[in-house]
């Protein structure tokens, strides 16, 4: 199993047991001749359940001594039986039962309640740039609600000619746009400011997701209300839930047309955990500004110093001052596989893949190092490469079995290069909590296990 350059191409493993043994096949055949077809179904179902573990273990893909893989030689039930009918999952499809490990998860010990808490998206298991809505990270400040959309109202007041009220029906009548954008919590990667604290990319970087959002540019609604776009330099966005979250947003970002009042997410309505039926989409800006259950926008001439911009979501500098109104998520990237908590099953070829994003625009390039940042190669960017959206990158790698430290480094179209921890700590110390966009390091050990590390 060695190729000419000495690299093993496949590890030999014990072949799995035959799908049905000789006796089993004889019994099944006999029973089927007797017309007891249900027996066959049961026998195969039982055998399939028993064989699930060894099938999944057969990673080396060897040729068994029998001269063929039983998964090929013995036709499984799904190849020889009748499958399930349409709309059999209650009318809304769910992932395969074999995908039950792929879940959003809480980080143990991070919060004392589940209503003011976070669940992290499983980045290590996702492909492309879209986060499935059911795996979108969650951040609730006072619990989530499932709000009747027929009773939801959206109000605009403040520095406007006519304060207005809109129903969901009316908002959905207006010209809509659909755009892909990432949403990242300002505190994503927060626990890693000082040192390594969590094991996997789900917990280090999982407070980011990317969806296609559908909605109406907020500027359209402000124009309907006759907003004073010249003197009204700020808006306050307010949620309709218990926390009634409020955040200040500059009018200049709204007049650009980028800020959306969104009801759609990945082709369907927003999920309740993500603000159903209406949320603000503020591309490039941290998630806390994407106010969920959006009930009101007020136009004003000064910033509002809301709780989440005057107590939290401020960056503490070494001189004791807090940077306030720090909203943009700067250029950042992370390798999602191989990543912490995973095991490389063998030496040989791997596709290093990951995600890059910038709150200032498009990703221009991503470089990848496998020696802890000494040497770099430029990765392939997969299309689409969109402004203020996740961008998927891939690069080929042949692992020789020796320790390797994998990093990625993104550059955006303003020319800004993602910083190292050294850069970031020199500028902001280690107590900032928010806006940690440092280069992430994953150590691939000789035993194949990948560890979250920081390098000096």
């Amino acid at each position, binding site marked *: 199993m060695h190729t000419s350059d000495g690299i093993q191409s496949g590890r030999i493993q014990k072949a799995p047991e035959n799908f049905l043994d000789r006796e089993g096949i004889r019994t099944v055949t006999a029973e089927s001749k007797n017309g007891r077809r249900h027996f066959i179904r049961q026998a195969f179902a039982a055998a399939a359940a028993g064989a699930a573990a060894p099938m999944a273990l057969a990673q080396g893909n060897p040729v068994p001594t029998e001269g063929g893989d039983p998964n090929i030689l013995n036709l499984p039930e799904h190849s020889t039986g009748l499958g399930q009918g349409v709309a059999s999952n209650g009318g809304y499809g769910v992932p395969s039962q074999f995908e039950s490990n792929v879940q959003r998860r809480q980080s143990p010990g991070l919060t004392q309640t589940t209503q003011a808490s976070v669940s992290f998206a499983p980045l290590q298991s996702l492909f492309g740039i879209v986060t499935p809505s059911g795996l979108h990270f969650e951040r609730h400040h006072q619990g989530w609600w499932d709000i009747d959309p027929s009773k939801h109202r959206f109000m605009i007041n403040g520095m406007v000619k006519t304060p207005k009220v809109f129903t969901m029906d*009316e908002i959905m009548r207006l010209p809509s746009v659909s755009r892909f954008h990432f949403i990242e919590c300002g505190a994503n990667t927060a626990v890693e400011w000082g040192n390594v604290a969590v094991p996997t990319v789900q917990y280090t970087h999982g407070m980011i997701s990317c969806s296609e959002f559908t909605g109406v540019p907020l500027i359209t609604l402000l124009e309907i209300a006759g907003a004073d776009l010249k003197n009204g330099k700020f808006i306050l966005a307010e949620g309709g839930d218990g926390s009634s979250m409020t955040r200040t947003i500059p009018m200049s970002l709204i007049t650009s047309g980028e800020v959306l009042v969104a009801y759609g997410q990945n082709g369907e309505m927003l999920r309740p955990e993500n603000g159903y039926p209406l949320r603000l989409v503020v591309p490039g800006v941290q998630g806390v500004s994407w106010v969920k259950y959006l009930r009101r926008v007020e136009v004003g001439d000064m910033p509002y110093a809301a709780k989440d911009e005057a107590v939290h979501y401020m960056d503490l500098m070494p001189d*004791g001052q807090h940077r306030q109104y720090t909203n943009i998520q700067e250029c950042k990237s992370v390798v999602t596989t191989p990543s912490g*908590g995973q095991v490389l099953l063998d030496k040989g070829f791997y596709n290093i893949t990951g995600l890059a994003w910038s709150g200032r625009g498009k990703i221009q390039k991503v470089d990848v190092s496998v020696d802890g940042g000494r040497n770099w190669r430029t990765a392939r960017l997969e299309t689409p490469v969109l402004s203020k959206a996740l961008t998927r990158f891939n690069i080929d790698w042949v692992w020789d079995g020796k320790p390797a430290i994998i990093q990625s480094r993104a550059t955006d179209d303003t020319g800004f290069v993602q910083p190292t921890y050294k850069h970031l700590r020199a500028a902001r110390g280690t107590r900032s909590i928010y806006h940690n966009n440092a280069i992430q390091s994953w150590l691939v050990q000789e035993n194949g296990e990948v560890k979250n590390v920081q390098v000096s």
Partner: protein
Amino acid sequence: MSKFRKVALIPALIAALFVASVAHAQSTTYPGVGRPATAKEIAAWDIDVRPDFKGLPAGSGSVEKGQDIWEAKCAQCHGVFGESNEVFSPLVGGTTQADIQTGHVANLRRSDFPGRTTLMKVATVSTLWDYINRAMPWTAPKSLKPDEVYAVTAYLLSLADVVPDNFVLSDKNIAEVQQRMPNRNGMSTQHTLWPGKEFKGAAKPDTANVACMKDCIPEAKVASMLPDYARNAHGNLADQNRLVGQQHGADTASPENKSTLTAGAAPAPVTAAKPAPKPVDPALALLGKHNCTACHAQDRKVVGPSFNDIAKKYAGKTDYLRAKIKSGGSGVWGPIPMPPQTAPDGDIQTIANWLAAGAAK
């Protein structure tokens, strides 16, 4: 020829632009979409209070009255003195008389100071009033009347000696209180993370990495990684990765196999697909619905005792539990009172049944 064409095109272009802009202007009226908000509707929803106190309703409240409200409605989570770290970060502590003079909280400069309280951070008293009014108490937001919000705010500020114990906070004197906020001068907008030009800002980002490609640094050394004892602290990572793929999850339920791969590393264990989840007890949903979980957890003390501990102590005593949930009380498990619960009788019965039967998760 080409010159002539250009000249001829310009008026046509201007005409086209004019038509386009008119068409745009017409389309922005959107007849039939939205209606004027009534004064009553605006009053019901426009509750925000700005740092210049625009939006602050008239009213007043004393520190003394604030303490009564605090002990009944706030102390469960925040502690009697706003010091509790049980549910949320402490509100009070870490500020001094000197800070009140300078408007800079000195402890924020210390890297060895444990944590940051709300009063160490907040620069604007309007923020406290606005947030208490819109979102507190935790399980009954927007239930306080304006005078009660003044009183609670006054009590909170008195705990940090921003106002004296006999103070009555009102819309008339709140601007003077602002001038005593310990961290009122502690904010900076000298950065590039605001997506506009409204603040002072900074000329360029505060980090400036370069995309070096070759021999960029000496050999990298691992400076930080998780200790072995934390291996399974986030649960078995094998169960947090897909069953198939170029990598599998590491079995962190077992000690790490430190040998190299060629010497026979343990392959990732495969967990058979989990069966469909068993039906959950309806009580579990009610615990969330009625915010029991804000103060109680299944297996550890939060503010109140764990459900497991209650179930153990009162096994089979459904009637007692039902009555206790309805009446609330203190002294059985500790001094922090549990307020009387107003959930429907049927729901309380379901929860009491569940607790009396062992509180199975």
